[in-house]
């Protein structure tokens, strides 16, 4: 357990070394909210407006999930860099078990995601509304589970790719597939109108589950609040479990082999 905490401490120290990275990520996220969301507000169809009210309010919870994804994914970038620069030999020589090393990395990726996402979630609360203490705890617990899953996904990709370009390209592909086929950017009813198969995938997407949960808590009177189902939390838990185990296993096996 101490080994896990040491790894978390190590990764948190690294996280704060990337100040510019964090500033850049926050700028990108805020550009999405304060530029794109505001523009889309002015071009929504009337039936969509009746479901979601304002696109800005609809997208703000999605933005917190977007930020969570971007920052939890950063751990993969660091691990990919360590692999390319052969720092992983040093990591493997540390006085801790391989399991502690792997679990520590996955966990720290998730925790860093949570830390980064906090100001975005706060921005969402300020503009959309504040939850009760119990609702806040539920939101944080579900988002943490999601962050750990994303961190695991990122580590799995990082240890399987040998160059920065491949990692960045794979990150983009995962981003597009997961986000565009989710309710982060558009409500489920719109996806259903466009393609019912995509709507079924979007319903199971953990990013949809997290975004819709926050919306159903913060915007309970809107029609979209009804699209949230507590089954989504199960999907998030399954996603998190699968990628935590995959990442831990891949990290241990692939690094030992190189």
């Amino acid at each position, binding site marked *: 357990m101490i080994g896990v905490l040491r790894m978390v401490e190590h990764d948190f120290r690294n996280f704060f070394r990337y100040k510019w990275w964090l500033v850049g990520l926050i700028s990108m996220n805020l*550009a999405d909210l304060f530029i794109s969301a505001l*523009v889309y507000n002015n071009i*929504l169809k009337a039936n969509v407006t009746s479901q979601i009210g304002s696109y800005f309010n609809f997208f703000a919870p999605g933005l917190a999930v977007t930020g969570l994804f971007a920052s939890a994914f950063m751990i993969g970038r660091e691990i990919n860099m360590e692999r390319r620069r052969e720092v992983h030999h040093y990591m493997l020589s540390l006085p801790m078990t391989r399991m502690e090393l792997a679990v520590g990395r996955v966990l720290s990726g998730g925790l860093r995601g949570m830390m980064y996402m906090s100001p975005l979630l706060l921005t969402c609360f300020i503009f959309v509304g504040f939850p009760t203490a119990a609702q806040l705890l539920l939101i944080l617990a579900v988002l943490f589970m999601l962050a750990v899953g994303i961190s695991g996904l990122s580590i799995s990709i990082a240890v399987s790719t040998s160059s920065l370009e491949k990692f960045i*390209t794979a990150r983009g*592909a995962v981003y597009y597939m997961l986000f565009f086929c989710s309710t982060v950017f558009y409500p489920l009813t719109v996806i259903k109108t466009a393609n019912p198969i995509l709507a079924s995938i979007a319903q199971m997407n953990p990013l949809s589950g997290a975004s819709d949960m926050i919306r159903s808590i913060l915007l309970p009177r809107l029609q979209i609040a009804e699209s949230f189902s507590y089954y989504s939390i199960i999907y998030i838990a399954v996603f998190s479990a699968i990628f935590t185990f995959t990442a831990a296993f891949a990290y241990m096996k692939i690094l030992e082999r190189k």
Partner: protein
Amino acid sequence: MIERDVRLFFQYKFLVIMRAIWFVSQIALFGVIAANMVSVPDYFRYYVGGLSVMTLYSTAIFIGFDIYEEAEHGVFEYLLSLPVSRKQLVVGRSIGGGLRAFIYVGPLVAVSLFVIGGINPINFVIALFALFLFSFGVSGMSIAIAVSIKSSDRFDILMGVLDALIVRLSTTMYPLAIIQKTNPLYGWTAGLNPLSYAADLFRWSTGVEDIAQNVQNPLLPLLGIVIFFGLFTFLGITIYERLIEGGGWR
């Protein structure tokens, strides 16, 4: 140098395939779904036109990542030892970066044209010429930034921020009139954005521009792209040439 950079790019089969998947997924997912959400008439075709230019931009940017890879793996010393002058090396890289992006985006533009429908041949040739200059300009901008900041991490994030601002404050995703209505400052920025010029000219050549009425006179965006190309090609070449000696690129 041009041949080397073009060959190098197409050796990244993984990257080339993945980027094509990004492109198709954006059309098939975001384009199709968002068209059901917004009231802009024929938004799907409008978005596909803008997406081609966004892809051209993000592909031309990639020359900067190559410069970091070369520095990291010691390939830069090899390049400096080649029997080509410094000027040829630098100009070759700038042209190679733009040309390979243009070659790569070619089939994707063909997909866009298939989705969008008919084109005006003369307008299309003018638009292609403008896109050609645009990709050289972006490549020059990427080289200038890459050799100036000397850190692949900072470069990656700066490109991300630039991408976020340049793409969102442009007419690639929404018409200029709507941006102006949202915020006059956003509208003013989008009106001066080279990405807007490239997207508007591409749509103009395919007839999609009638949806948004962004282009009143095609000469103005063409002139904007020529200025962008001249400025950033000059900057890229000058900065790269200045930092190339004595390990200044490290």
